[in-house]
């Protein structure tokens, strides 16, 4: 396998894409073919099954380069075929197919998400080199020195302000342009930043925030406006604690489009009859909006708020690109990366774990909503 990837790496960049996509496609096609023929009866399929039992271990041997693995694969395969004949009550080949469909995903998830999560959790209680247990020392470090506290507080500021402001602006905009002429284009304008990378957005806004000395012409739009009204140019990203809010503006700029699109679709789903009934009852525009529309789109509102909360909790790119955490703007994700780069594995893992613990309640809430919906269905 390593040899295969090394060989690929020696090709020109775009050729690598073609080779990998074709190779991957071939593997998936073979998998599905085997799944399809596994349960069929008849001599032809018996031959194919037999071939599979020989070929797959052979491939395993070639790629993984060990006899043990080939033997293991052969044993599993043989076992599964035996099993599927045995359990024909469920429909022949039931288990084999189930395993075939789910294994690739579960293998990757186990290697890339579950195992690392366990390791990181362990690391959080180890020293910087990861070889001595230090208990809660890393957490004490986060929550006792000033920059650590600043980092946590900043993250909380992000999680409070970004979701609320982005949702409120997005909702207002969705309502204002609802059923207006050119709604499509109005939407596209605000939605566009969703396609722009956080890095790109950071540069766009970094340019907006540029400050020049007062005796020179300003090239940043915001300072130009300040100067126009007779003020002194401001170094927006230098002064605590306001600089965090100027970083937050960038995130709001990106996320409002998401809120707007989802809420706009929800608003269009509000039954006209309810709005008319409220109108007949004498409710004015604002009351109708608050008591009918907002009630009807509540599920979407919750989803938008939780989704943006999670994004803001994990914010990294914006802080990294605009300030790299200087002047007291650091957040958990940025600090975690900095500590890792500084070979402080324990602290880095502890910061990741804090981040994880902050995300959990939000997603558990979401997951419970999902479970409820599945029960209804």
């Amino acid at each position: 396998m390593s040899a295969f990837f090394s060989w690929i790496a020696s090709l020109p960049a775009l050729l690598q894409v073609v080779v990998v996509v074709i190779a991957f496609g071939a593997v998936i096609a073979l998998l599905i073919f085997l799944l399809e023929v596994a349960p069929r009866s008849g001599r032809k399929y018996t031959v194919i099954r037999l071939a599979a039992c020989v070929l797959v271990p052979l491939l395993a041997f070639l790629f993984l380069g060990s006899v043990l693995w080939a033997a293991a694969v052969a044993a599993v395969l043989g076992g599964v075929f035996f099993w599927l004949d045995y359990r024909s009550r469920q429909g022949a080949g039931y288990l084999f197919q189930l395993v075939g469909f789910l294994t690739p995903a579960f293998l990757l998830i186990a290697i890339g998400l579950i195992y690392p999560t366990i390791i990181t959790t362990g690391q959080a209680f180890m020293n910087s080199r990861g070889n001595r247990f230090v208990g809660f020392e890393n957490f004490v470090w986060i929550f006792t020195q000033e920059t650590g506290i600043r980092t946590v507080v900043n993250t909380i500021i992000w999680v409070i302000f970004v979701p609320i402001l982005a949702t409120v602006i997005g909702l207002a905009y969705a309502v204002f342009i609802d059923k207006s002429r050119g709604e499509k284009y109005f939407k596209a304008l605000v939605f566009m930043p969703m396609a722009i990378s956080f890095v790109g957005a950071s540069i766009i806004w970094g340019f907006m925030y540029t400050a020049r000395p007062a005796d020179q012409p300003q090239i940043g739009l915001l300072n130009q406006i300040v100067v126009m009204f007779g003020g002194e140019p401001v170094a927006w990203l230098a002064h605590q604690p306001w600089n965090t809010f100027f970083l937050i503006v960038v995130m709001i700029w990106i996320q409002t489009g998401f809120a707007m699109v989802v809420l706009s679709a929800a608003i269009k789903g509000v039954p006209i009859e309810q709005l008319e009934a409220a109108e007949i009852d004498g409710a004015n525009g604002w009351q109708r909006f608050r008591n009918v529309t907002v009630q009807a789109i509540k599920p979407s509102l919750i989803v938008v708020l939780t989704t943006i909360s999670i994004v803001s909790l994990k914010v990294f790119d914006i802080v990294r690109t605009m300030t790299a955490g200087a002047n007291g703007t650091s957040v958990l994700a940025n600090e975690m990366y900095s500590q890792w780069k500084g070979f402080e594995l324990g602290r880095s893992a502890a910061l990741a774990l804090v981040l994880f613990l902050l995300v959990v309640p939000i997603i558990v809430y979401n997951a419970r909503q999902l479970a409820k919906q599945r029960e209804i269905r």
Partner: protein
Amino acid sequence: MSRTETELVTTAGSGRARRGAAFGRSGNDTAQGRVKNRLTNRWATLAALLIAVFWTVPTLGLFISSIRPAADITRSGWWTWFANPAVTLDNYRDVLAAGNSQLTMADSFLNSIAITIPATLIPLCIATLAAYAFAWIDFKGRNALFIGVFALQIVPIQMALVPLLSLFSRGVKIGNVELFGNLDAGVGYTQVWIAHSIFALPLAIYLLYNFITEIPAEVIEAARVDGAGHGQIFFRIVLPLTMPAIASFAIFQFLWVWNDLLVALVFADGKVAPITKLLAEISGSRGQDWNLLTAGAFVAIIVPLIVFFALQRYFVRGLLAGSTKG
């Protein structure tokens, strides 16, 4: 999904009918007309316009600056360009040749393409298979397992980065049997492909599952009665019917991978770095060279913008499916 789709259909359909309606209060008497202009008065229009301007001007400023001569950019604000329009492509030429000791911006642009395409297709295939199993193969503990996969979205990738990296450099061994050898930085894009594929899976499985369960059970049953196995059902029925959903997730993942910085910083170092990483680097080291930064940023965002505007409909559909169901 059916609800969301009807919503979208009504949105698209009423666009034509709506064209005649005036912006602001009108004396329209039909039921639809009365609902139409509920909250749209002059102030609302003004506020909407302000928001629209505020959301567009920063990008506009970036674009105009990127085509101004470098000397002009530092001498006057980009808004003066309208009075004195001078256009040059020098900034783009310069920034494509700029970079660090290992690669130029142009190289990193190629790297971005080489990273993004496989990192979009691979998780998509794997997730579609798994989503199908969750939707149409009955097994014990299916619900619990599915919610488990959904809940894995909790794990911030920050938790997974470092151990996964050391896993790559060590190789995976069980006992003294090697599952795969070390995938060092020398092996190019492999690490970053695998990392992106893994991190995409929970959300991809969840989104695609939402679409695949919406296929009427009768259709699947009929195919089964006709003797189709899971493989055939998957290829002949599920894939064609969920193509729009697959397309919308593909766009999602494409934008996500292209725009990502964190995974790239950890897994795509040196010669295989994508454009976001190089851009962040230039922004750190040459933060005042706005001629390079604006042009570079524009090069980096142009591909996602094209994808986005060309395929906006699918993108919105995916977004709605992912969120209104959540």
